[in-house]
């Protein structure tokens, strides 16, 4: 049967693009990089056979000579070894991560006194042992060579003593001239730090103002309207059965993403018995966020319309008739209202729009539903996002008026993050400008003095993220540079010489110890808290104490004058806004033809870690683009105007966007699910003063476009005009180029109703393969039964991994965790664009497509048309699925059979082993791997000059982050996920030494440990009681590309989307099968004829 159909490789070929046709003639789509190995210069030098023999002789001789000399390796032991350090054994310290944005209680792994890995602290009742990608990456920022080495005065390195003296003189001079002192910080969760700032301000007089890079001030302010409290509630996503989110990307960015993603994950972790507990998540948003892509139901709308949806939902819930401007999806709203009404007290409505009116209505709805006290808590409130937009605006005004004599900035970068508010020009009117940032940024560049703080891994700290919840941070390494704890700086300037550790201890003895009732003496309380990293104090006791304190405070405050230590409690009491007033304000908002939405990326967050190469190369969970800054736009809006990046084409067009006269030219990236008539750009790019890596990423500072709305809060959307393609082209470095599954069972997905009501074969049918027997007949058998090889009887452990696709939210914590654990190289944009990224674990993201096999059947479409259309995702509002893919450790691994040197083979514990020192780099294994998880070292990334600015391991400092238990791979070898074999071996060793059986959960891979949703589970499947064995036996279980018959050791669990729709594949599949067998019969007939 000859195939007469012509298949095109791309659109270019179909349209007979001459360039492509020419390129088609050559075997490789791109030139092999031979120029690097044999350049023109090398080719010009003619060398004869004789020369070759001479070289050969010389090199053999040289090698022989060199081998006679024993290389001398020095070893330098400690002079006085600290008692707790054993070389070769890791020490773990409990500490706290808090950069003003994310809070996380952590455990720091140190080896020989240097921190190399961050894990979550399971003792914390807030973050419950999980982390996110940014926290995982923060360990690398410790070893950032760009950090300040000492104090700076007027841009030059200076002695700390001189700086202190000059600074106090300057502050005194400024205050003497009648000007005031201001301390501007990001959110300071540390109560001791707030107290230290208070001490400083009580000496100089002045005020402490908080500002967040991405503000959520409206949430606090709206609670002033509805609850008389300028506070941030605590959200319990784990308790919510219905979650409605209006533009809040709570899984990766909004308020407390680590806490939320853990809670959200609990609601998504189900089995057959608990299936009805599956939470139902509705997202209404403008740009496709990680949170939105996990939603069971998603609606896309313009940023200006979100308020309308909120009001419409309020109307539907309360039966009211507040004015709704513009059209909303009435049916959808009615459905949501119905669900919410049925789940009073078990639902949660959150909103990411920084607008007081919208937030107030959301609060009213939560109140009406009885959610306060169950799914969100304003009594035990959180301290995240203390930034106060009102205070900040008045500060800028004060500065402009020349009333501010000295401004000390700590934990914030307002020149960059408040670029639109005229902060930079106002700052130039301040006499003394001080920044305490650890590394250079846009603010330190214009400051008179820089008094660099320690990195958080070098300093003492504490945090109070939620009422009654305290945590401690301790140094895990000696300060690398001559920096000084910011707390000590403030104290020193206040005339208090105590060290940061003493001060925190003093503060805890004074304020935290009396609240708890567990320990009798402070020393044991302190020691246990430091050991555990957290001190969770009973809320009841604490609340009583708080009330007592408030009364005391009131008394005190009458005495004190201008001193404010924290922003809480005492905001200007504005006139309260009632619901109708709020609705009127929302209705007054005008929509524009094209609106811009400013969002935070999962990797860069608000932009503080933009000089961290791990975070820049981290593929965005949704777009999968690395390194670059871009405009997201719905492909339907792009059609005919910009390059659509179809079929692996990664060359995009540039466009200029203009907001309020400010414009930026950025490449346009097609983003399915982006609301029509909107574009999105992320913050964190366009850095001017950060370092080499941030400079490589380029881009534009999106904070320039942030506006202020009527209520004085920061507004993260704006009307925008977008130019046509400028003609300039831009090459994206994207790690995924196929966006749909083309009707295959890659991510198996079904609905809750199907899962609970229909038999397994209708939604998780095992792919069968056809086996022919000697008589000419054939049968359908399970792929495991069609084997080329005999099974080995293997005893002992059988390591396996199970991945629950319902729980996985695609956040990417595992990707960075793996990178840190396994010394995965950073390769830079150019290499990523050539699909040479080195990540051992990737998260595939697929969009749904409008075309399906059923639909094609109905419409009578041929397969080519069908598959062509299947390649296109649903542009308007696709369903999104995530799938983490790492080496599947196949028991019948195709890579193992093709390795000519046996560098990759199978262990008795069923791991697919990769031996770097044996590998000769034929790359046969990578070609034969159906999952494409093998990575080849095209260069020596750790030594090649091309990667000097990109790869952190190329300098002495960055190299310190490497895990000494994992080999750093060199050029010419293959590498891949080892299932963290170093951890497996370590875990086994611990059990052997202790003389006990290995218990389930004792060994965790880097990805499984850091997963905030517990989606990845690792263990021994031969232990029938293990979690992984139970998951593998679940009826949701399937293997990726099962039909290939290679028996992977990674088990995927079918994704369940919460929907009442019952979808059955039975009808369709039966038909296909039938058709298939007929075809086979025909074939056989023909064969028989031939034989005859």
């Amino acid at each position: 049967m000859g195939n007469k159909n012509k298949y095109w490789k791309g659109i270019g070929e179909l349209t007979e693009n001459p360039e492509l046709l020419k390129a088609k003639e050559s075997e490789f789509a791109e030139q092999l990089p031979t120029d690097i190995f044999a350049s023109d210069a090398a080719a010009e030098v003619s060398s004869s056979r004789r020369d070759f023999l001479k070289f050969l002789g010389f090199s053999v001789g040289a090698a022989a000579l060199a081998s006679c000399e024993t290389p001398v390796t020095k070893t330098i032991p400690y002079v006085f070894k600290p008692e707790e350090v054993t070389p070769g054994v890791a020490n773990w310290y409990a500490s706290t991560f808090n950069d003003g944005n994310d809070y996380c209680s952590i455990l720091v792994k140190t080896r020989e006194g240097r921190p190399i890995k961050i894990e979550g602290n399971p003792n914390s009742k807030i973050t419950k042992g999980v982390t996110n990608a940014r926290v995982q990456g923060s360990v690398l920022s410790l070893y950032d060579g760009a950090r300040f080495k000492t104090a700076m005065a007027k841009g030059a390195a200076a002695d700390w003593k001189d700086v202190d003296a000059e600074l106090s003189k300057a502050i005194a001079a400024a205050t003497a001239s009648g000007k005031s002192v201001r301390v501007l910080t990001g959110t300071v969760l540390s109560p001791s730090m707030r107290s230290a700032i208070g001490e400083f301000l009580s000496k100089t007089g002045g005020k402490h103002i908080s500002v967040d890079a991405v503000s959520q001030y409206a949430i606090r302010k709206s609670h002033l309207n509805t609850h008389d409290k300028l506070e941030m509630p605590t959200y319990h996503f784990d308790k919510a059965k219905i979650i409605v989110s209006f533009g809040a990307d709570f899984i990766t960015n909004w308020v407390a993403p680590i806490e939320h993603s853990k809670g959200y994950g609990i609601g998504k972790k189900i089995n057959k018995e608990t299936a009805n507990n599956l939470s139902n998540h509705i997202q209404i948003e403008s740009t496709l966020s990680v949170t939105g892509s996990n939603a069971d139901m998603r609606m896309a709308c313009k940023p200006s319309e979100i308020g309308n949806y909120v009001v419409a939902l309020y109307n539907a819930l309360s039966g009211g008739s507040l004015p709704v401007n513009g059209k909303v999806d009435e049916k959808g709203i009615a459905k949501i209202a119905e669900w919410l009404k049925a789940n009073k007290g078990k639902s949660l409505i959150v909103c990411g729009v920084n607008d007081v009116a919208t937030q107030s209505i959301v609060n009213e709805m939560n109140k009406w539903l009885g959610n306060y006290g169950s799914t969100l808590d304003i009594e035990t409130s959180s301290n995240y996002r203390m930034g106060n937009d009102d205070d900040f605006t008045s500060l800028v005004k004060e500065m402009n008026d020349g009333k501010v004599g000295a401004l000390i900035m700590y934990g914030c970068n307002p020149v960059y993050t408040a670029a639109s508010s005229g902060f930079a020009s106002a700052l130039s009117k301040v006499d003394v400008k001080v920044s305490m940032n650890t590394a250079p940024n846009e603010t330190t560049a214009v400051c008179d003095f820089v008094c660099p703080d320690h990195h958080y891994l070098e300093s003492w700290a504490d945090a109070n993220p939620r009422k009654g919840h305290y945590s401690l941070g301790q140094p895990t390494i000696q300060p690398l540079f001559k920096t000084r704890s910011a707390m000590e700086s403030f104290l020193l300037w206040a005339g208090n010489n105590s060290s940061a550790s003493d001060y925190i201890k003093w503060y805890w003895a004074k304020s935290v110890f009396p609240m708890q009732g567990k320990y009798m003496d402070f020393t044991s309380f302190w020691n246990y808290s430091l050991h555990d990293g957290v001190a969770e104090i009973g809320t009841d006791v604490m609340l009583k104490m708080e009330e007592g304190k408030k009364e005391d405070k009131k008394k005190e405050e009458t005495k004190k004058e201008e001193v404010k230590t924290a922003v809480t409690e005492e905001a200007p009491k504005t006139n309260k806004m009632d619901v109708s007033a709020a609705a009127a304000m929302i209705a007054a908002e005008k929509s524009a033809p094209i609106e811009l939405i400013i969002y935070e990326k999962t990797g860069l967050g608000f932009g503080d870690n933009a000089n961290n190469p791990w975070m820049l190369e981290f593929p965005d969970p949704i777009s999968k683009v690395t390194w670059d800054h871009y405009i997201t736009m719905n492909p339907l809006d792009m059609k005919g105007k910009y390059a659509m990046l179809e079929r692996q084409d990664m060359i995009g067009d540039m466009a200029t966007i203009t907001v309020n006269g400010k414009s930026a030219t950025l490449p346009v990236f097609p983003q399915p699910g982006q609301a029509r008539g909107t574009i999105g750009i992320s913050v964190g790019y366009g850095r001017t003063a950060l370092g080499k890596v941030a400079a490589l990423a380029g881009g534009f500072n999106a904070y320039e476009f942030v506006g202020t709305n009527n209520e004085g809060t920061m507004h993260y959307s704006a009307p925008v005009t977008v130019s046509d393609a400028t003609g300039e082209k831009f090459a994206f470095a994207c790690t995924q180029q196929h966006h749909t599954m083309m009707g295959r069972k890659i991510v198996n997905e079904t609905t809750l109703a199907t899962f609970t009501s229909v038999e397994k074969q209708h939604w998780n049918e095992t792919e069968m393969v056809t086996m022919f027997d000697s008589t000419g007949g054939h049968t359908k058998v399970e792929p495991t039964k069609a084997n080329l090889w005999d099974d080995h009887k293997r005893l002992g452990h059988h390591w396996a991994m199970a991945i629950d696709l319902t729980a996985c939210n695609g956040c990417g914590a595992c990707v960075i965790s793996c990178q840190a654990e396994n010394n995965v190289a950073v390769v830079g944009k150019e290499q990523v664009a050539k699909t040479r990224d080195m990540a051992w674990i990737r998260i595939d993201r697929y969009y749904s497509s409008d075309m399906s096999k059923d639909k094609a059947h109905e419409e009578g479409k041929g397969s080519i048309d069908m598959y062509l259309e299947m390649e296109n995702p649903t542009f308007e509002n696709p369903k999104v699925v995530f799938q983490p893919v790492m080496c599947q450790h196949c028991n019948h691994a195709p890579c193992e059979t093709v390795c000519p040197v046996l560098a990759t083979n199978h262990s008795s514990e069923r791991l697919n082993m990769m031996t770097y020192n044996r590998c000769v780099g034929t790359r046969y294994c990578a070609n034969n791997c159906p999952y494409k998880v093998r990575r080849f070292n095209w260069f020596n990334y750790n030594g090649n000059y091309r990667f000097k600015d990109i790869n952190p391991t190329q300098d002495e400092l960055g190299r310190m982050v490497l895990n000494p238990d994992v080999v750093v791979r060199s050029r010419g070898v293959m590498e891949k996920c080892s299932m963290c074999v170093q951890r497996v071996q370590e875990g086994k060793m611990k059990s052997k030494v202790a003389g006990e059986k290995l218990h389930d959960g004792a060994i965790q891979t880097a990805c499984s440990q850091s997963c905030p949703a517990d989606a990845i589970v690792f263990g021994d499947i031969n232990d029938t009681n293990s979690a992984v064995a139970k998951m593998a036996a679940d009826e949701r279980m399937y293997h990726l590309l099962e039909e290939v018959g290679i028996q992977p050791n990674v088990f995927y669990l079918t994704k369940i989307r919460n929907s009442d729709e019952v979808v059955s594949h039975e009808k369709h599949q039966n038909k296909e099968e039938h058709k298939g067998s007929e075809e086979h019969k025909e074939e056989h007939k023909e064969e028989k004829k031939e034989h005859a």
Partner: protein
Amino acid sequence: MVKPCKSQWHRNTAIFTTLALIFFLNISSALAQLDGKKIYKANCRSCHYLDDKSSTGPGFQGLSGKHPDKEWTFKWVKNNVSFAKTDSKAAEISKLTTNTMTVFEGVLTDDEIKAVIDYLYTNPTEEKKVDVAKGGSGATTSEQEGGINPLYLVLVVITVMLIIISALRSVKRNLQNTYNEKHGLPPLEELNWRQWCSRNKRTVALIVIVTTSYGLQAGWYALKDIGVYTGYKPEQPIKFSHKIHAGENGISCEYCHSGVLKSKVAGVPSANVCMNCHKGIEQGPTTGTDEIAKIYAATGFDAATKTYTKTPQPLKWNKVHVLPDFVYFNHQQHVVVGKQECKTCHGDLTQMDVAEQVSPLTMGWCIDCHRKTEVPGMKDNPYYEDLHKKLAEKYSGQKDSIITVARMGGIECAKCHY
């Protein structure tokens, strides 16, 4: 520092004998039981000798006479600091010297302390140091200084033979020429070497074949030797003698290389470990005060005032056993779990003044051992229980039924390479 290349055969036989010897020694050595002598050697010997000589602490001769009450001694050993607070006799003794004795509470169990006291009350004496004094040739020395390499002998014989042959030839030639001259025959023609070669093709071929194959063989062995540093014996910044410390004084290996029980690396001891004893011992038997003064310099110790006053200077030792970066080796696995003796791989350090690499540390050497060795610690370890049972079943019918490391998966790549 680098020794001349030795014959491969010699080396292999030597290694094999060493391994075999050590292997048998291992098997015969008694397994874990409370041996007071052993405990003494590991924990007390570094400060107390068995005779009346005092070291950091007093000698043990006549201990049972001095302190007849075993109970009292037990309390003293267990925690002399707290005991001195309650007991007057103990308080008196503790005032005798500025050195405080180690507190063994938590280091040794009560039973272990009792065992060591029982042993000491039998009035043991120092073991004779005859072997050590002789500096005896251990199994590890494959070549003796002053000995003649047989290769040189052969060369000498060949040279002598060649000289004799050429002399005889020229004699024969002269005689022939004289004879020819007398009988009017033409003299023998003078052959240059080319002509000679073309007339003696068989001899030439033989020589070529012999030299080529010898050259290839030598080359092959030379290549196999690349990166193998058996016999590497670098000079160290301090002339530390394992023979004196581990041999004569019987300090256990784990006392200084304490990482061996807890970590993948045994570790070069930090200078403060040296100071545990050398705070008191200022003079050594061979080098006097010179070498010990280097420890003082490193730790910033002032011997006159017995205080640490100066800036410490780290010591830069030369690493003897160097494994490539792509190999993961764990001491804890071998010593604690596998119950292997240090000398299995490191040779008998008690006989070495300068530490020397005695094993080739090649992968073949590792695997050889893993193929032959049955892990002594495996049977009693609950971790291995299931696996051991299953493996025993699997190999029970076979001729060679011992469960070696290899049979447990100990020669798989990812056990050492990751």
